[in-house]
Each structure stands twice: as C-alpha cells, then as structure tokens.
C-alpha cells in the first residue's frame, strides 16, 4: 500500500506541474515500486558526482538527460551508451549537455541519470495502454525489426494473469526466439510473465497513466531488465 501511495505522489506531482509525461527517474521509480527490474541508477548534477556514482555502479555506464521538455531523448542526443571508464565518462558528460543544448536550447535540464549499461541479449517490448473501449491493457512484442517492420505485437486487457501472459507471449510469431535458437539459451519466460503481470496491475492501479513503454526489456536466461521506461499521463492524451 505504501508503494502505491508513493507512485501516486510522483504522478500527482507531475500533473500539478502541468507535465504530460514522467521524468525518467520518476518512471523508473514507479517501475521499481511495481517490482519491474530496471538498471541500477542515480541522478547526478555535475561531472564529479557522475564520476563518483560511475565507480560505485561499475562501468560500463549510460548517461540519460533529465528534462521535462524532452520525451524522445535519443532524438536530441540526450543518451550516451557504453561509457567504458571514468575518462570516457568525463568526456561524455559535457558532450551530453552540449548536444542537448544545441538541439533543444529551450529544454530545462534537471540533471543527468547515470545507470548501469546492461549487457545485450534478446530484446522485447512491453507496453501499457488505457483503451477507451476496454480500459487498461497490456502489450507484448518482440523488439527491433519484429516490432518496427512486422508489427509483431499482441495485446491483452487487464487484469492479466499467468495463463494470459503465457498465451500472449506464445501468440507472437517471433516468440520462438525466446525459446532459444541457434544455440542460444532460452530467455527467462517466468520473469517476462512477471513483468506483464506487473504492468497489468500498474496500469489498473494508476488511472492517470495513459501509456507506458518498457522498450526495450532485455530478456536474459536468468531475469529481465527494463532498460528504458516511458510513462505518459492522461492529461494531454488526445486519443482518449
């Protein structure tokens, strides 16, 4: 119950500030409170702080800009991946700030998120949407070109239970990849099932959330990690 209240506080604060989406640390926090695994991360305000946290987290790390004016971070150079060590970090940090200022001079930068760079594995996408007809719904898709080109995604209306989640996963044409092909170990299906169930309850419990992206979720043989999270609030959602 406490976690639920904390999530609602984050959402209400954003709505009061007139925002239509959450900042990345906020959406990460809501995911964490709903038991969705996200990378270890910290909010930092300057390069020295970044260096300290970088050592604490362990390299490689990722930097992400935090700004209410920027929803699509990578479009404005607001994400730097694969920072291998402290030297690289000290170069990357000012570069990130400069890039964002160049692309979007009006964006107010509230800080930088430094997080653990997760190792690559099979990528999937998990989404949440509030449908005008059926209410809170969950999406699952295979990542990359499966989503972009083949639109290999499927939906379920919340609440989603374990049986629903398994059916949803197996409904995708690309789900064979998760079972392990070309000598790769199978992905942790149970952990994916948990994420789908968690997103279902997250969407059901927070009416102000209209859309949610966990894109990608990296699926490992043991566990999963939602490396990017986006939460859109109902306020400016013209479709609903």
């Amino acid at each position, binding site marked *: 119950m406490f976690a639920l209240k904390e999530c609602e506080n984050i959402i209400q604060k954003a709505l009061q500030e007139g925002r239509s989406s959450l900042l990345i640390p906020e959406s990460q926090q809501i995911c964490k409170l709903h038991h969705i695994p996200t990378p270890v991360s910290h909010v930092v305000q300057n390069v020295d702080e970044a260096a300290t946290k970088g050592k604490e987290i362990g390299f490689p790390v990722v930097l992400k800009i935090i700004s209410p004016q920027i929803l699509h971070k990578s479009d404005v150079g607001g994400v730097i991946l694969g920072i291998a060590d402290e030297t690289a970090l000290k170069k990357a940090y000012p570069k990130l700030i400069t890039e964002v200022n160049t692309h979007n001079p009006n964006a107010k930068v509230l800080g930088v998120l430094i997080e653990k760079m997760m190792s690559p594995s099979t990528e999937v996408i998990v*989404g949440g*949407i509030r*449908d005008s007809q059926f209410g809170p719904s969950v*999406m699952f898709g295979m990542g990359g070109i499966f989503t972009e080109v083949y639109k290999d995604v499927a*939906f379920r*209306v919340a609440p*989603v239970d374990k049986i629903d989640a398994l059916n949803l996963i197996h409904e995708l044409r690309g789900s064979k990849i998760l079972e392990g092909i070309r000598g790769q170990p199978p992905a942790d299906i149970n952990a994916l099932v948990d994420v789908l169930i968690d997103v279902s309850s997250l969407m059901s419990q927070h009416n102000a959330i209209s859309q949610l992206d966990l894109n990608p979720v990296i699926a490992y043989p043991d566990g999963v990690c939602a490396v990017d999270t986006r939460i859109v609030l109902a306020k400016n959602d013209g*479709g609903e």
Partner: protein
Amino acid sequence: MDLEPFFKPKTVAVVGASRKPRKFGHVIFKNFVDSEFEGAVYPINPEAETILGLKAYPSVVDVPGELDLTVIAVPAPKVPSIVDDCVSKGVKAAVIISGGFKEIGGEGAKLESSIKEKIEGSSLRIIGPNCIGVYDPVNHVDTLFLPKYRLRRPKQGPIAFISQSGAFGAAVLDWATSQEIGISKFISIGNKVDVDEVDLLNYLADDPHTKCVTLYVEGISRGRAFLDAAKKTLKNKPVVVLKGGMTKAGARATMSHTGSLAGSAQIYEGAFKGAGIIAAQTVDELFDYARALAYQPMPGSQKNVAIVTNGGGFGVISADEISRRGLGLAEFSSNTLERLRANLPDYAIPHDPLDLVGDADVERYRMALDAVSSDPNVGIILVIVLLQTSFIESDVVDAISEASLASGKPMVVCTIGGDFTQMLVKMLEEDHIPAYPTPGRAVSAINSLIQYRKVQEDIERRTQQSQVNSP
C-alpha cells in the same frame, strides 16, 4: 435483469398493426396470428375495429390483463408516447422496430434519448429502435417485418445469432434457411437504447436451447462488461464474434511506442483472445465455426487430425492447411495400420492423410472411419468425400453420422460439387455434421474447435489454481 418476456411472452401487442398488408405492423401481427404462437396477441390501432378478425385496441393501456411484449412499428415521432403507455401499463418488454432515431442524428437522436429517460426506473426493457427485432422458433416469437416468402425463417437449431445490423441479420437468416441451418434465437439489436449485446450474452449463457452464440457487432458499448459476459458464457458454450469496422485505423495520440501500435483492431483482437472469444474474420467464418462448435463434441487432450479422403489432391491440400495452422496430423497406431492394411486395396497407402482412392465405396469409408476414429492417436476426423464418382451413394451420410456418434470425436466433412453434393450437404447438416466446400474452410472450422478446447483448458487450469490457492 429478465429478458424472458422478449422470448417467452404469454401476451403480445403489436402497435401499428394495420389492415394494409404491406405495412410492417401488419406483417408482424400476421406472423403471430399465423404461427403456432400459443399466447394471446392484440392489434393496437386507434382507427380499426378489427384486424385479421381480432378486436383492435386504441392503445396498449386498453388491452385487458397483463402485457408481456409490445412490438412497436409506427413512425418515430409517435414512439415516445407509446413508450409512456407501455410504462403505465406495466409492459415488461418492447421491441421498437421503427427507424428514424439516433442513426439519423438531430431530432432522431433527441427522440431516442427521450425514450431512454422514460424507461429509467421502470421495469420496461427495450430492444431497438431501428431493428428487426426477435425471432425465436422455440416459442414462435417472430417480430420480423419481412414477409416469409422474402425472408424464410430457419428451423430451430442450436445456434443463437445476435446482429447489430438488421439487414445483415435478415440476409443471414434467409441464407441459413436455405442451408438447413437451425437457429435457437435471433436478435437484431439496432440502436441499443436499452438491451445490448452484454445483456443478451448474459441471457443466452443460460439458454438451454443455445449451444453456440454468434454475434455480428460494429461497436461494443460496454467493453469490459462485454468481456465479463463472454467469459461467463464461455464456461458453458462458445462465443463467435464477427466484428465489423476492424480495419479503421485507431485515432490515438502517439506519445508512446505502445500508443502507435495500439490500433482499435489490435486491442479488440487481444481483448477477444483474452476472454476466449473466437473471432471470425468473414461472414463465412462466423457460421463455419458456429456450426462445428454447436454440432460437434469438443476434442479431448488428443488434438491430432486424421484425414480420410477419396481424392488424393484434397487430402494433400488439407494436410497443408493443417500444418499451416500449426495443427498436427495423426500417427496411426499399429492396430489401425493392421486393420487398414487388411481391408484396403493394395494400392492404398495406410497413413495420414488416408487416401481411400477413387474407387472407394461407402463400405470402405465405413471401415476406414471406424478404424481411424477409434484410434487413440486421432483426436479429430476430417472426412473428405468427393461425390462425383459413381462408387459412392448417398448412404455415405449414414456412414459418417454413425462413425461420428460412435466415436464421440469431432468430425467435419469437406465436399464440393453440384446438386447431388448439395443434397448430401443438407442431409449431413440435418445430422449435425458440418460440411465445408474447401479444405481451408474445413480446417479453419477444426481450428475453431481446438481454440475453444484450449479456452476450456485455461478455464480448468484457473479453477484448479484457485482451488489450490484457497485452502
């Protein structure tokens, strides 16, 4: 909420019953008078003394005794005052046939909302307006205003059919009659001022005459309630839905990736699948699936399909269709193989698809169907019988029906051809063996059986889990 008075009324009034044979009110009134309907029926017409020899009443309030059902077929502006009369009379159910309401917007929409207000808090339930109403062959309720020589009425059968569109519903009923397909109830819901698909699903869930519910809908007014009603119904019987307007792109803000991928068709598809509803993509599929689901037993845990055919080509195409849908062919047991080898000519190879070859007669079918359907490795039987050869007589229908009954396993037929074939298709239909003109449609129908079986398995698993979780 009780919808029984729509389907089992003891007393019916027809408002707008007219002496002019072309008037809707006249046709509807005549339907009741001419049929085996056992209750009392009253014509309501302030300008007539009698209609078809029965005393006419100026208003429903003048009818002596209780009124269960009132059918209203007068111009839209007159309808609200008749609804008032129905409420004060204590009428339980009304079907408003008249059009000219929400569908025309403006004044019509105002008339419709006035009706909605009038029935609030009353016990009157309304189907329509802008619909063709109810057809129930069990209780001989027939509010269809289309004369019987134009729209033939199907016989009683196990399939209920709900249609949002009246014209589509009428055409399907006429076609169903020509195919010997039986209907348990038909309801055209029109503008749904009161009774909608949710209410009807809830009602049909418990209807003993209905084994499968089919729906044609364009918009579902109460999404989540609909899914709940479908889930409730699916515990007892399958629900097949043809949803019109699926390809319309969703108008949704796309601030997220998920939002851009979530067209209304995708969400509907997911919602239906999650609830266990079987989605039909075409009119053919709606009744192809419904006939298999309503007529045939469910497969057990064994779901592999055995194909028995007298045409090699159709057998091969069917096998392709089966693998294309991710279904399995059967591996015949040694007993079956032995029996087939002993009884088939040397040039017939005993494996699935089982080609009985072109000179197969009814006896060969009888033997093969018996052997194959009693094989534990066979879950479902697809019988292909091409009737163009002179070796096969019409008693092949008996051979198939008997094998179907004896095995208790689902059996569907694929056959295509002219008048002789069509005659046998109808005989099969009467025996509740669904027949399809192409391997693709036959295998899709088989797939719908497997889909519903999986839905049942999910329901069973959930029940077991909840029993484990609550000590």
